[in-house]
């Protein structure tokens, strides 16, 4: 067992509700986890810890730690529990490292997260990490193809469920979790990467404009 404490910096996308990870924290510990929307700005260096975890949303870890010559890396790691829009967070945590991150810090972070029943996938520090980077172009394509009349929304959803075994189709998933949230995530990726596949699809832009006026 690795002991850990939590620094609460505001609402957390990863842990919006009670979770064994929150319940398992103590007042002090070998590891400290900054959670909430202020995690990146609240982060402080602390070489006495085995690991420092910083919750990320669309930020990258380097914005907290700084970067230098491709040699960055310390006892600080980033993490985000994967979640689409308003959907409940999944059990998957993307654990973010830098080129020279301490192996002991990664190991301790993994133990703390897995100890709370979460699954860990490690990745390097790039915007969108693994999942958002992969699914956002797919969602944008699905929305664009709906506009082009490739198939009905129901048929598109049914096709990926029957043909690929996905639990949910892209259109129903975006409806369930909030299309305007998709806009925000993919817009942020578009600004970083500049490739057109991240540009929010027309339907996502419409949903965003309406959300700004308080409409669903």
């Amino acid at each position, binding site marked *: 067992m690795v002991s850990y404490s939590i620094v609460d910096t505001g609402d957390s996308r990863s842990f919006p509700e009670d979770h064994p990870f929150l319940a398992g924290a103590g007042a002090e510990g070998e590891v400290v986890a900054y959670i909430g929307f202020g995690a990146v700005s609240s982060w402080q260096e602390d070489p006495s810890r085995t690991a420092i975890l910083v919750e990320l949303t669309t930020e990258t870890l380097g914005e907290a730690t700084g970067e230098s010559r491709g040699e960055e890396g310390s006892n600080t790691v980033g993490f985000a529990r*994967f979640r689409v829009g308003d959907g409940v967070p*999944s*059990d*998957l945590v*993307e654990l973010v490292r830098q080129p020279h991150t301490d192996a002991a810090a990664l190991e301790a972070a993994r133990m703390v997260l897995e100890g709370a029943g979460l*699954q*860990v*996938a*490690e*990745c*390097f520090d*790039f915007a969108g*990490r*693994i*999942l958002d*980077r*992969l*699914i956002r*172009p*797919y969602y944008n*394509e*699905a929305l664009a*193809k709906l506009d082009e*009349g*490739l*198939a*009905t929304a129901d*048929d*598109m959803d*049914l*096709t*990926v469920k*029957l*043909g*690929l*075994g*996905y*639990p*949910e189709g*892209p259109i129903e998933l975006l409806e369930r979790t909030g299309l305007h949230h998709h806009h925000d995530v993919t817009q942020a990726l578009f600004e970083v990467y500049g*490739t057109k*596949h991240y540009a929010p699809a027309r339907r996502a832009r419409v949903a965003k404009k309406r959300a700004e006026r308080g409409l669903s």
Partner: protein
Amino acid sequence: MTTIQTVGVCGAGTMGAGIAIVAARAGYRTVLYDTNMKALERARGQTEAFLAKSVERGKLTQEQVDAAMAAYKTTDTLDGLAECDIVIEAVFENLSVKQELFAKLNAVCPEHTLFASNTSTLSITQIASGCGREDRVVGMHFCLPAQLMKLVEMSPGLNTSDTAFSAAWAFCEALGQKPVKTKDAPGFILNYFLVPFNNDVIRLIEAGVAEPADIDRSIKAGLGYKMGPCELLDLIGLDTQVLLCDAFYGVTHDPRCAAPPLLHRMVAAGHLGRKSGRGFFSYDTDKMYGA
């Protein structure tokens, strides 16, 4: 509208053998055609074994299987398809091979016979072009393995008549399959989404963002997919992924469809996936997946 009683299947490979099982199981007289006798024998053997398993599992009765096998014929000449009300082709994925086949079939089959293509990457309109019955050609894209997967993506070509499309649709439902309607567009729905998605995965690995195992874990635990994309690519075969990329990139010029350099390197290194024992993962057995 013609009632379909006899179904022809061209090509006794992976897909054709499965489609013929679907037709025979649904009670149609089924004629499987291939120029390769060995492929026909193999398909018959697979069909017998599959139907026997279905009896064991209580999905079919022995009487149903006996009736299906009695109505199941193989042929290595095109004339064997002369009685068919619909012919589904699953020959090599090559435009001129498919065009020639339909043109020849046009002379063999009666006026009313519908032609369907199981193509994954080619255009239905192009396959139909010049065959002599462009209004009676439809796309019927089954999924692998056809005898287990219900989905069929159905698409009309530009010259397909509504009557022909509705007749093929009703036939698809009578097969016990679940048709969805798509346009005659590259990759229809499934491959249109899947092929570039898988390329994005390969590019993420190439860019050093994450390892294959971490990507697969993310997709499965984060999205609830049954299989991770790297496992799936290993199963599809990385050489097949190159062919899919080339087909789609050639038509769409979408950079996401272009084969990533890492994919070419892996193919050159002989890392083709399960079939070569190594792809994104290593396999210590040469047994086929699911065998």
